């Protein structure tokens, strides 16, 4: 698993890590039982605060994506596989939406903005609030 951070996006780093792990699970890049790099390794590789990595891993554990085994590290949980099937369905929905949008001739950036904005209106703020309550 290779993480990448976008420093200038303003999106909290722990949320960026969470999204990347979920995405890797959804695309099948990470599978059940796969081990994630240790907190220290992620922190040192990306030059970021270890507590931020801990926060991301804990939240992923809370959401059932990861299992943290004391002393041995973080592993992708079995149940995460079912999620991948749901995600593939969602992917199909988005694909057809994109096909219907094609005649409008929007740029990739414009499409992304429309999508992200709609997302922020409906779910974005709630998720952030939930996230805050967790350790």
């Amino acid at each position: 698993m290779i993480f990448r951070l976008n420093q200038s996006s303003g999106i909290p780093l722990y949320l960026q890590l969470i999204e990347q792990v979920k995405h890797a699970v959804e695309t099948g890049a990470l599978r059940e039982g796969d081990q994630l790099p240790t907190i220290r390794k992620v922190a040192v590789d990306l030059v970021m605060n270890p507590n931020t990595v801990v926060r991301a891993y804990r939240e992923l554990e809370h959401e059932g994506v990861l299992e943290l085994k004391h002393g041995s590290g973080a592993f992708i949980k079995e149940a995460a596989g079912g999620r991948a099937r749901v995600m593939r369905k969602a992917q199909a929905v988005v694909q057809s939406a994109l096909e219907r949008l094609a005649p409008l001739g929007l740029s990739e950036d414009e499409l992304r903005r429309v999508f992200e904005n709609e997302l922020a209106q409906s779910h974005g703020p709630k998720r952030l609030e939930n996230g805050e309550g967790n350790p």
Partner: protein
Amino acid sequence: MNEYIIETNQLTKSFKGQPALRGLDLRVPVGSIFGFLGRNGAGKTTTIKALMGLLRADGGSARVFGIPVTDADGSIEVRRRIGFVTEDKELYPYMTVEQIIRFTRPFFPKWRDDLEQRYLKMFDLPPKKKIPDLSKGMRSKLMLLLAISRGAELLILDEPTDGLDPAATEDVLRELVAIAASSGTTMFFSSHQLAEVELIADHIGIIDQGKMVVAGSLDDMKAQYQRLQVVFTSSVEMPSRWVEGVEYVRQEGRVVSILASHNVDAIVEQARALPGTAVERFPVTLKEIFLEHVRSS
């Protein structure tokens, strides 16, 4: 052990009648990497010197490890448990790199020979060279080596990457992160480099004119702060009064930019209710938060 490794209450200090600290409240959680930000002359170095017992505050209180910094015996213990890198990076000028390491080592029972050797190699420090002959970056690295090797529970770093080139900065930050990850050492560091603070800090405090203007968890702050862009399709009709949480409103033509520090949902609702508007929300960077707070105060 307290929840906070550093705690000050209403700390004040003046120099020749010129106030440097005007009631500073600072709380640094145990195990955090705390980025202490402020413009030049905001009071960062004065705060650090007061914490180290290098100068005496006029009023208020300061505790490190729960020990009042004004306590004479306590102050010795505090300094033994802290690793310190100062801004001016003054070291004994007559010593060589090797000599100052040998000189410093016996003061600290928890001295880590392994770390000393590792940083000597990693930082490429010439053991036989005299301190005045070292470059500014080399002196920074030497101070870091001395601070880190003593096995401190708390590192206080005043501009630790000042004067380092980008590659050396990356080295130093990476090491700080590695130490925090493996030993849980708390780090309190001042910096002008918002980008590096944003990467390695989990808590920040912004000091301006001797007072803390904003402090807390960086992630929480980023979750609360948002920038809204409101586009009016016809004429711009602003509300007579915005709801709470609006830090600034700037208008350019039919586009209005709003910085919200909290209460974002209510602000969005209010903007939506205005005639003919489209509202978009964007995340905010640490730089935007910083500039907003030191500009407005």
